[in-house]
């Protein structure tokens, strides 16, 4: 599904190197987690993969289903099936949440040569999916993320994911700013989307989220590289001992 090879990237502004050779292979239907200390490059990896401006790839490749994505515009990556759930979802005053969702869904359908969804069909689907995520009609009507609580914003991210049905989902610290109940709700939303044709890359600081979204593989990232890969037990090790031992081993 996703194949990252020797990926190097730096900040466009000052040339500071952040990713220093990331290698990662994610098979179809699998959930991989990336853990790592602050500043290890986890979020940068998610931005570089999703096509955010401000980063320059200097070496290496990233392919989605065998096709290079690094030369694509952000919207083309989205239409190809890549989705990033933001750590800090952006507020957009003046754009209704429903309008936003519908524009996004139909833009992707159009890009893939599919018919656009009618307003009625769209409404039916979105209502059903919103209900399971406890997103009420008012949240759908309001401007995107404006006045949403932290939990509401993250649920709104998962609703977008559910509507867009991407095959490759990257969750960037989706647990940050969530209380236990909200985290459960978000995790249930993610789990409901788990499917043989869909992969997840879950970026997190804490083992706690991985209790709810059970990963197949756990990677530890430090200083712009994946330094260790293992099973779910690796996350527990981090939870109990911190990163110090792993970093020492790597050094």
């Amino acid at each position, binding site marked *: 599904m996703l194949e990252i090879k020797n990926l190097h990237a730096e900040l466009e502004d000052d040339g500071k190197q952040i990713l220093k050779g990331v290698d990662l292979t994610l098979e179809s239907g699998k959930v991989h987690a990336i853990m790592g200390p602050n500043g290890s490059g986890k979020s940068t990896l998610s931005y570089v993969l999703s*096509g955010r401006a401000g980063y320059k790839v200097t070496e290496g490749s990233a392919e989605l289903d065998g096709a290079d994505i690094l030369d694509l515009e952000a919207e083309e990556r989205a239409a190809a099936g890549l*989705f990033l759930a933001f750590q800090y979802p*952006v507020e*957009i005053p003046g754009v209704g949440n429903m309008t*936003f969702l519908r524009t996004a*869904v139909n*833009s*992707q359908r159009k*890009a893939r040569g599919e018919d656009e969804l009618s307003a009625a069909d769209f409404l039916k689907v979105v209502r059903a999916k919103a209900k399971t995520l406890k997103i009420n009609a008012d949240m759908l009507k309001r401007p995107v993320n404006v006045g949403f609580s932290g939990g509401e914003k993250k649920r709104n991210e998962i609703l977008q994911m559910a509507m*867009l049905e991407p095959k490759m989902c990257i969750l960037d610290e989706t647990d940050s700013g969530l209380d236990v109940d909200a985290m459960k709700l978000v995790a249930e939303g993610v789990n409901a989307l788990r499917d043989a044709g869909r992969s997840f890359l879950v970026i997190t600081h804490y083992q706690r989220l991985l209790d709810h979204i059970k990963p197949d593989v756990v990677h530890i990232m430090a200083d712009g590289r994946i330094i260790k890969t293992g099973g779910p037990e690796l996350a527990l090790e981090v939870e109990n001992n911190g990163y110090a031992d792993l970093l020492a081993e790597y050094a």
Partner: protein
Amino acid sequence: MAVAEPKNAQLAVQVPVTGGWSLKAREDAKARLATTSLPGRRDEYWKYTRPDALTQATAPEGDFVAYEETPLFTGVDRLKIVFVDGVFDAERSDDLSLEGVTIERLSDVADKDIHWAQGLYGVLETRGQTPVSRPLAIVNTAAASDGILVNVTGKVSKPVSFVYDYKSDSSDAMLHHCVKLSEGAEITILENGPAAARFNTVMEIEVADRASFHHIRTQGRQHIRHAATHMFARIGTESQFRSFTMTVNGTLTRNEAVIEVAGDDALAHIAGVAAGDGSNAQGFHHDDTVFITHDAVNCESRQVFKKVLRNGATGVFQGKILVKPDAQKTDGYQISQGLLLDDDSQFLAKPELEIYADDVICSHGSTCGAIDEEALFYLRSRGVPKGEAQDLLVLAFLAEAIDEVADESIRDLLTERLEAWLARRRA
């Protein structure tokens, strides 16, 4: 030693040959004009906008383009009054009779000895000359050949719609309208169209106690045109005044509004949206100049102006709230914002508050910025192509001003036109 600037020949004021009440108002205007001068480049009030094209003897030539587009208010149930290049078109206009209102043409009644309009024509315009003079409006009072006089006595069931078509590239139109609302009366006035290669228009509006005036205006899609418009309004106790203007394109537009809030518990809202593309020789320069005077207790005023500018377009906002000493409990709000889609465009704002009462709430803000890159990436990461994502953000930026239009169906019409304007520039 000062060197005199060479001057273009200036506008000569031709007072139409009439008798009756209007002649007196016109002669008076001509006399006032003799003691002032046309706006020049050194006038403080014209600091951001060059008045030359508006004051030179003949209109700068236009370049009429026939767009295959249904005129804006076509689908609205209304009483339609059509002017072509500033000349009344009887054939395309509706019959002027409508319940609750008397509608007459200025040129039809200008010769009468007595007419209700003599208490309004040039009267509010004259009051609006202090503290800042507005000479182009004086010229209009003296020289306007025609206009519509609207005397509203009841709640009028449908809007009265002024349609301004433009055909001749040398047209130089001047219209002067008066709208008088009696106590408790209600009317909506619609205006649309570019009117002429050069257009000078004045509307004087007297809103009596508990009356309600709604006004929605669009200024057409023609690129090469010049316009100076003035609204002078005085509003009474518990009355409402709401005016909204949308401007896309146009070489030069100067929209002035002078509103006197004279009765207690009254409300005055004025808003505008301008979308300008400065590419091509004609460019785009749009100026909103607003002066609201609070002279009564417990009144509310709002000014909401938004401009989206690209390719060297210029937007100007000069907005003032004057709160007189006895105008306690005034609630005044003023916002002007420019959204620049590139580095070549500019937004110049001069917000002013002058407050002499001590128990008031007045807030004002002015911003100038670019598209929010974070929001743009968020939309694109969901699959919305860059152009469409940018347009969504532009419309979101303009929404606060468009929301000032109470009628939802008209809001939709305006939004559609803005979407189309944006889409044409994306192609």
